[in-house]
């Protein structure tokens, strides 16, 4: 089926397009924004898309909420399970957001900025300062200058350690 058909004829599928669009917006936010809080917002959008996906899965067209209607038969219910699962997912999402925001607060306190490129610069400087403490930065073995060939004469050095 063509894209157009998918969009127009199968009416039920539009919701998935919406979800995917939402997900991509969220991911784009995380990828493209440098501000740490904006990244968290992108993350939230991304999570919402996942939650919406589950809600859409559980929805049965024409179905009602899964509350038992006494005395009525042939009632169409939506599937309650995905909806219930999303309660957990929302809790997870909130916990994540809270933790992320707490971290940004701490980062702001520690560095005075929340722009990632600036933070990266600061971190690189810290890394380099630490490496500078190291008076002999590593050079991998096999330095051509180090290659010495049989020229090592032992000469008349003092005898072995056993003396």
């Amino acid at each position, binding site marked *: 089926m063509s894209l157009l058909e998918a969009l127009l004829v199968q009416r039920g599928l539009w919701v998935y397009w919406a979800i995917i669009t939402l997900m991509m917006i969220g991911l784009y936010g995380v990828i493209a924004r440098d501000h740490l809080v904006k990244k968290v917002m992108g993350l939230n959008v991304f999570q919402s898309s996942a939650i919406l996906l589950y809600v859409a899965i559980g929805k049965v067209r024409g179905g009602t909420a899964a509350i038992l209607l006494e005395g009525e038969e042939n009632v169409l219910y939506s599937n309650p399970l995905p909806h219930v699962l999303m309660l957990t997912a929302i809790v997870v999402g909130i916990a994540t957001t809270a933790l992320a925001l707490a971290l940004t607060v701490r980062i702001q306190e520690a560095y005075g900025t929340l722009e*990632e490129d600036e933070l990266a610069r600061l971190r690189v400087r810290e890394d380099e300062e630490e490496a500078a403490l190291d008076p002999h930065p590593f050079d*991998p073995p096999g330095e051509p200058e180090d290659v010495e060939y*049989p020229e090592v004469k032992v000469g*008349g050095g003092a005898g*072995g350690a*056993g003396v």
Partner: protein
Amino acid sequence: MAATETHAQYVMGETVRLLDGPLQALLHPALPLLVAGVVAALAPPRLRKALLVLAPLWGAWNLLGFTSGDLVSAELAGFELILLRVDKLAFLFALLFHLAALLAGIYALHSDDRMQQVAGLLYAGSAVGAVFAGDLLVLFFFWELLAITSVFLIWARRETASTRSGLRYLLVHIASGVLLLIGAALHWIEFGTLVFERMDLGSAASWVLLLAIGIKCCFPLLHTWLVDAYPAATELGTVYLASFTTKTAVYALARGYEGCEPLIWIGMAMAMFPIFYAVIENDLRRVLGYSMINQIGFMVCGVGLGAGLGVNGAVAHAFNDVIFKGLLFMSMGAVLLRTGRINGSELGGLYKTMPQTAGLCMVGAASISAFPLFSGFVSKSMVMTEAAHEGYVVVWLALLFASAGVFHHAGIKIPFFAFFAHDSGLRPKEAPLNMRVAMGIAALLCIAIGCFPNALYALLPYATDYHPYDTTHVVQQLQLLFFSALAFVTLMLTGIYPPELRSTNLDVDWFARRAAPRTLRVLAAVGGAIWYGVLAGLADVLKVVRSVVRWLHSPAGRLGEPWPTGTTVFWAATLLGLLLLFSYLGSAL
């Protein structure tokens, strides 16, 4: 496939005595030495010294309990490993190693250096383990253990030069071990077995394994580690080193490549080329190092000549070489210990105060030069006879030339420059008693084997009725030696030779006298230039590789620096997209 059958034969054959039960590991011949090494590492000096002597004796006693055909295997990770396989070949080498360990142990008694004594015991133990290894994995284990334990004997000198030498030595030997492991893997793929048996040169595994063994065995161009490292070790470290590593490699060759023709030519080259180096070398222990390669050349040649006299000669010569080369290294070690010098130009006249050492050294020199009634004669002639017998005239001539060369650089040059020649004015004390005892035992063995070779012949892997003392052999060898000596003496007396002697080889006498030194130097220069050129080329390649690697992976590199969060997320999304595309295509196809 042949190897599989042999294995089956080993396991199923009726003559096989399978050792089994929980105590089997305790009996492994390598254990006495290894255990003693570990104990010695913790023991007080007195106990350590006792162990140096007692462990080889205990090991030898334990060893005598084994007979050909004994087999012990264990299962590890789904492989059946043959920890122990006893046959005449392995037994002879093991006996030899115990003897060498005993001699070196006595020689080491005066020292208080824990590092060397422990390393020496462990080193000897790993050599014993290696010759009894029935399959390539166990061999690999002991192969690497040999490298690791022996390097401490070099480091024990505790000088910058020897530390660096040791590192190079370790690198070379680890590389040899890695090749061995790769060879083992290839062998497993090609033949489905890891049993270490004779193989034909042809499969990839056999070539890789030959290279691995060849490194330890000092094949031409792979030999530099020996002359680099041995002179760098301590005076007693070299004695240990000279006995085990290369002989283990000779064993491995005899086990795996018996009768492979290329070995004849490799052996010939090995017997020849070190002579030239030895002649122009000043450091007497390095001279001995070159002469060692030369002697191994005889053995490799013998292995290549194949079953019977060839292998017998190779093995017998290995046996003798350990004793007389050990003796020579011991005497040079004593000189180094007492004078602190080892260059021929700085020594001389030591016979006045070290007469016993000088005498013992000359016994060793006579043996290595294959004087009749000394041990070298009874084994070296086997290889040469077999070469002539098989119709390799060129090889026979080359070996003849090489023996004359040996007589020159090891038989005359070593004792002459160390103990006689011009008087250096040094008046050191005689070597310590324990050293003289060790050298004395070795000298006695040299003479005993030379006079009564049949005891040695009985131990050889193939039955033999070889008689070294027939007229042809004796006369031919004596001619060679006496004319060589005559030339040497004449030329010394007439003063034609500069103090640092070039050559007194009978066969190529004229050539050697006039043109050889210069030609040799030119050749050496050209060869050296090519070699260094290759090295420099490699170094350039390495440089490029290294800069690419650094560009990618160093902390500031493309892949090494921590990416921003966004980049990683981007890759996650990209990977998802790729995977979707991939699975879509995959399922569509």
